[in-house]
């Protein structure tokens, strides 16, 4: 299983039956494929769709039907379309149960940076800043360390923030952390990973849950 697959398979457990969910662009989008087929989950797309369906086949492709990543999609039965103000009323108003987003850096306080790298071209934050403030639960999924081997879980984010104290749970290929009043708490270890491994690869300070789950 690749690192991405591991993360995605863990992330899907955050989604309960009957939930309304927003999946970010990139790796989070892959989570959709893993949702149990007997679940009734409505996926929200911030451009104005509740009830994203699978990608279309050739005959279904419709330029008037895309997701927030600008990909052609379909709509499930029971879907609804709405305008951008209503879409973000949904998001900002706390009506989305879970948002799963990618991250560049997460701090031990639950700050998230995922929209810009100074010196590189700024593309824009899209709906990410609204999602992290509005969704009932914000789950960040990202690789534990950068391609240069640096921890992406920081004492303080070095990149410009998307939101301050907004992350509820962070999932990497090695571990899962919750952000609580007491601080960042390690709650799960991936199979074959030790707490020491995590300490080594994590710049942030963290507590270890009394109920730490280890995957055999």
């Amino acid at each position: 299983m690749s690192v991405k697959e591991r993360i995605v398979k863990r992330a899907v457990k955050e989604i309960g039956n009957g939930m309304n969910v927003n999946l970010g662009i990139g790796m989070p989008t892959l989570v959709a494929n893993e949702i149990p087929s007997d679940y009734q989950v409505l996926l929200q797309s911030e451009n104005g769709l509740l009830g994203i369906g699978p990608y279309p086949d050739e005959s279904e492709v419709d330029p008037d039907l895309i997701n927030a990543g600008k990909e052609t999609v379909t709509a499930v039965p029971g879907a609804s379309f709405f305008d951008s103000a209503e879409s973000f009323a949904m998001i900002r108003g706390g009506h989305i149960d879970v948002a799963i987003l990618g991250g560049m850096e997460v701090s031990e306080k639950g700050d998230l940076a995922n929209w810009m790298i100074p010196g590189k071209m700024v593309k824009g934050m899209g709906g990410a800043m609204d999602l992290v403030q509005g969704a009932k639960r914000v789950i960040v999924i990202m690789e534990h360390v950068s391609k240069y081997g640096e921890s992406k879980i920081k004492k303080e984010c070095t990149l410009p923030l998307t939101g301050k104290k907004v992350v509820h749970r962070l999932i990497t290929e090695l571990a899962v952390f919750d952000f609580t009043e007491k601080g960042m708490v390690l709650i799960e270890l991936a199979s074959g990973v030790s707490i020491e491994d995590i300490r080594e690869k994590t710049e942030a300070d963290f507590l270890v849950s009394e109920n730490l789950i280890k995957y055999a």
Partner: protein
Amino acid sequence: MHKVEKNIHEIVGEVQDGATILVGGFGLCGIPELAIEAIRQKGIKDLTVVSNNCGVDDWGLGLLLANKQIKKMIASYVGENKTFEQQFLSGELEVELTPQGTLAERIRAGGAGIPAFYTATGVGTLIAEGKPVKEFDGKEYIEERAIVGDYAFVKAWKADKLGNLVYRKTARNFNPIIATAGKITIAEVEEIVEVGELNPDEIHTPAVFVQHVILGEGYEKKIEKRTLKVEEAIG
């Protein structure tokens, strides 16, 4: 009052250099193709453009960018456009990046006579810089201002001759709120029906918001990311 016009070029001809225009669409979906092309041909300059995105290099608002007609862009995401990067880095183009929900709400507020509102979006980030902060029930919010345009250009699916509009699927996006926030709103549509043919319960934009209706033809409706079912893509 019937609002159907024959010629988009005439209407666009009234737009002055330096105007603020609001443009509907999300990516290339639901954009007013005719209006953008007419503005390009007319060569109106120094535009402040408010739109969620700025098209791609050779389509949508990217056409106006390539033609150096845009002075300032207010958008939430402009990552699909290389011309943008060049003009931004060279200082030719001023950019105000706004979170998408805040952008939508600022436009809605503009149309609804709300001069400003508070949102938690962007608190503690670069977006909050210079903006008044206020606490409500122990939580911090920033004040965001409404946006109003001299002109609003939207794309709808159908209109009746009074200017009532109906949109199709996710081509709705920013269009209905942008329609409310222009001093003059121009809607281009794929079909015009007689007054009374639209079900009044199903109208998305009431005629009061629309000053001109144009029947478009030959919409290209370009697709940015044609993504297919995996089986299909492989097979």
